[in-house]
C-alpha cells in the first residue's frame, strides 16, 4: 500500500502544478504525469486492461493537447484571486471532505464487493462465454448493453465534432460576412 500512497501523492502534486502553472505546455506535461501515474496505480491494483486503455488514451489526449497548445497563442489566464474566493474554496473543500469521510465509513472494505453479482461472473464466466479474459467477457457479453450505450455516446460525440468543425460551412459564413 505504501507505493500506492506515494503514487497518489505524486499525482496530487502533478495536478496542483498543472493548475497553478502559467506556462500552458508545462501544465499539459504535468497533466500527462498525473495520467501515467494513474496507469501505474491500475497496474499495481491488478487491472492490466484498464492500464493499457489509460496509457493509450493518455498518449492520444496528450498529443492533441500539445498540438492545440503549440498551435496558437492562448491569452493569459485570469490571475489575482480575491480573498473571499479562497475562503469559499476552503469551506467547500472541507464540507466535501467531511461528507465523503462519513460516506466512506459505510462502504465495504477495499476489494470486497457489496453485490453478489460479481461472484457469479467470476465463477461462471469462463463456461458461459468461453473467453479467458474475464473483463472482456463482462463488458462484451454479460454487460454488452452498457458497451453499446458507451459506443453510441462516442459515436455521437465524434459525429458532432466532425459536423461542428467542418470546413464547408465556415467558408460560406466568412464569405457572407464580407458581402
Amino acid at each position: 500500500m505504501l507505493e500506492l500512497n506515494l503514487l497518489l501523492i505524486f499525482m496530487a502534486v502533478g495536478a496542483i502544478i498543472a493548475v497553478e502553472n502559467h506556462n500552458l505546455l508545462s501544465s499539459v506535461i504535468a497533466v500527462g504525469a498525473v495520467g501515467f501515474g494513474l496507469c501505474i496505480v491500475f497496474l499495481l491494483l491488478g487491472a492490466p486492461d484498464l492500464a493499457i486503455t489509460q496509457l493509450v488514451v493518455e498518449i492520444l489526449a496528450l498529443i492533441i493537447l500539445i498540438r492545440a497548445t503549440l498551435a496558437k497563442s492562448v491569452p493569459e489566464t485570469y490571475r489575482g484571486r480575491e480573498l473571499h474566493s479562497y475562503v469559499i474554496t476552503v469551506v467547500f473543500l472541507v464540507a466535501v471532505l467531511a461528507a465523503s469521510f462519513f460516506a466512506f465509513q459505510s462502504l465495504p472494505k477495499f476489494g470486497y464487493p457489496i453485490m453478489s453479482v460479481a461472484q457469479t461472473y467470476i465463477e461462471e464466466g469462463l463456461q458461459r462465454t468461453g473467453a479467458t479474459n474475464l473483463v472482456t467477457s463482462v463488458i462484451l457479453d454479460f454487460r454488452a448493453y452498457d458497451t453499446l450505450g458507451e459506443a453510441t455516446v462516442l459515436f455521437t460525440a465524434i459525429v458532432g465534432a466532425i459536423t461542428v468543425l467542418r470546413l464547408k460551412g465556415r467558408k460560406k459564413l466568412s464569405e457572407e460576412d464580407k458581402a
Partner: protein
Amino acid sequence: MRVGMSPIVKTVTRVAIGIIFLYGLYIVLHGHITPGGGFAGGIILALVYILYVLAFGKEEAEERLSKSWASALESLGALMFLAVALAGFAGGYFFLNVLPKGNPGEILSAGLIPLSNLAIMLKVGSGLFAVFLVLITFSVVIRKEEE
C-alpha cells in the same frame, strides 16, 4: 516547402509504424484471451496514423486514409456492433452469444466476442483519427484567418 519532420524522424517512423500496427491488431484479436480489447487496440491503430501525420504531414497521411474514408469506417464499425447485437435474436434475445464457444484460450473461441472487438476497433480507431484530422485542419484555417 518541406513538409513534416526531419529525415531521422521519417526513417524511424517508417520502421516503427508496421510494428506498432501489428501490436494494435494483436491487442484487438487477442482481446478475449489476454488483457486488451477493441477500445485499447483501436486507439493504438489511430495513434499509428496520427504518428504518420506528425512525421510526414497531413496531405501524405490523407493519401493512406482520408477523412471521408475514416468517418465511413467509423459508421461501418457502429453498424457492425449493432449487427452483432441483433445476431443474438437468432437464438433468443438481444446480445445473446449465439456462436459456438470453442476451446478457451484459442483465437477462434468465445463466440461473438472477437467480432464485437473488431467492430469496436473500427469505430474507435477511425473515429478518433477523423477527429484528429478535423481538429488540425480547423486550427490551420483559424491561424490563416488570424493572419
